[in-house]
């Protein structure tokens, strides 16, 4: 594996641009997620309008993979219905587990497919899935 297959331009951009890194003025819920072994620590805030996720943002710190994965997830999930978001979460987590996805599923994930190569790096999987598991907690209960 090569550096540019993991730390792609898109991942680097998302980990640094911080466009989804903010505090919501109005939020319905928030959830903190962290990887105790490596110190990635994020907090997601969510705002619903009807059944739709009208706003989603994060604060926190961690490695480039965890921060980029969080930001890419927010781009993907914002504006979606809750059920749709849950479905996308499952598809993403399957991809990171190494499951072969269909063309249609890959398309649904959009930019998040750049994280696919993380499935070949067991030591970094937890960085990539942190935000997605945190969101699952936020939507689940």
């Amino acid at each position: 594996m090569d550096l540019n297959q993991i730390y792609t331009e898109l991942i680097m951009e998302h980990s640094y641009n911080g466009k989804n890194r903010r505090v919501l003025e109005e939020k319905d819920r928030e959830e903190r997620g962290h990887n105790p072994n490596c110190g990635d620590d994020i907090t997601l805030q969510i705002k619903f309008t009807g059944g739709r996720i009208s706003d989603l943002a994060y604060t926190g710190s961690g490695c480039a993979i965890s921060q980029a994965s969080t930001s890419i997830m927010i781009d993907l999930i914002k504006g979606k219905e809750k059920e749709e978001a849950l479905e996308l979460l499952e598809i993403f987590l399957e991809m990171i587990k190494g499951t072969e996805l269909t063309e249609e599923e890959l398309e649904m994930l959009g930019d998040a497919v750049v994280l696919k190569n993380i499935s070949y790096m067991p030591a970094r999987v937890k960085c990539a899935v942190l935000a997605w598991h945190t969101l699952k907690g936020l939507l689940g209960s």
Partner: protein
Amino acid sequence: MNRVAANYLDPYRSQEGSYGIGLDNKINPYLLKKDFPIFQEKVQGRDLIYLDNAATTQKPYPVIAAVEKYNQAFHGNPHRGAHYLSVKATELYDQARQKVQEFIKARSRKEIIFTRNTTESINLVAYSYGMNFIEENDEILLSIAEHHSNILPWQQVARSRRARLKYMYLDKDGRLSMDEVKRKISNKTKLVCLTQMSNVLGTIFPIKEIIDYAHERGALVLIDGAQGLPHLGVDVGELDADFYVFSAHKMLGPTGIGVLYARESLLEMMPPFQSGGDMIEYVTEDTASFAPLPEKFEAGTPNVEGAVGLAAAIDYLNNIGLDKIYQHEIDLTAYALEKMKGIPYLTLYGPLDLEDRGGIISFNVDKVHPHDLASIVDLDGIALRAGHHCAQPLLNFLQVGASCRISFYLYNTKDDVDKLLESLERARSWFVNGS
């Protein structure tokens, strides 16, 4: 794999190359590396550069061969049967204990208890000594630089026994001053638990002075030698430690075997930690009397192959000489520190001089998270540690979230350092310039 197997079955192989000592009477790591089959493996298609020795060390042929030989020819359940293999296994296990006793200069074989690792050794002391002899309002004193394994068992003891946990803090260079020690040890201090060498900063603590001072105040001292012993050695008699613990896998030996040294009088008064087979004399339906030391603390079938491997590791280290190994690590540390100090995007933690320190350097690369850095250098075949190094209280104290750590041993070379620095440059450039 067959190629390696054929080699390591010859235990005498390491003697070619005079144990890696050059004509200048110093270690020649390029020769020594040939004793370690792992360096024939490719990582990411490249030569392995192993800089994670504070986590675990690699094994030389004689250690691999000794374990192999035991399993091929001598395996039996020790202390039980009258048959050849049981007797043979007992003999090898006892010899390994004697080897350990001589290596750390304990007075008696009764003072050497085999455990799984340092963590289990500390837990044995915590549960057997701590839970029975530490009283309400007693103080257990730790340094802030302790590994989690030398913190958590004491938190349990303190909670259970209503004792107080207190910490000694480090100065700005990561050193533990005697002033701080004297401020913290009081007449209430029952036990001081301290590492010989910090696994994060590499600082070596003045354990002899601390032990003497603690003893004057009536406190016992446990020294965590996991990080210190493989590089500095120990003379437990001269040191006068009450408890001294370490693991084989950080000194070229196998995983799954560690040691607790304790003063015989303490072990005599402590109750067994675990009970079952091998640690008994007579058992009736309701009662049992315990075996004498050291078996009293070794319930169940022991890890004989581990003990055999540890003994082989001790022989290997002795043949080279710990003083030469330490000097080699210090030479490498001097070389690395000198170069690293000049790199503006590196932040180094711990002392920058060579006084009372070992071959461990913790650092961060500006704008590159330690975990990203570890993944990137791994692509170059370089193994280093990133994270909190099982020492979260220390990192909190230093106000560092996570760091990278390199740690040297006898087989590391200046080339390893140079290649690491090239790889750091590449990572930094990728994160800052995007190429």
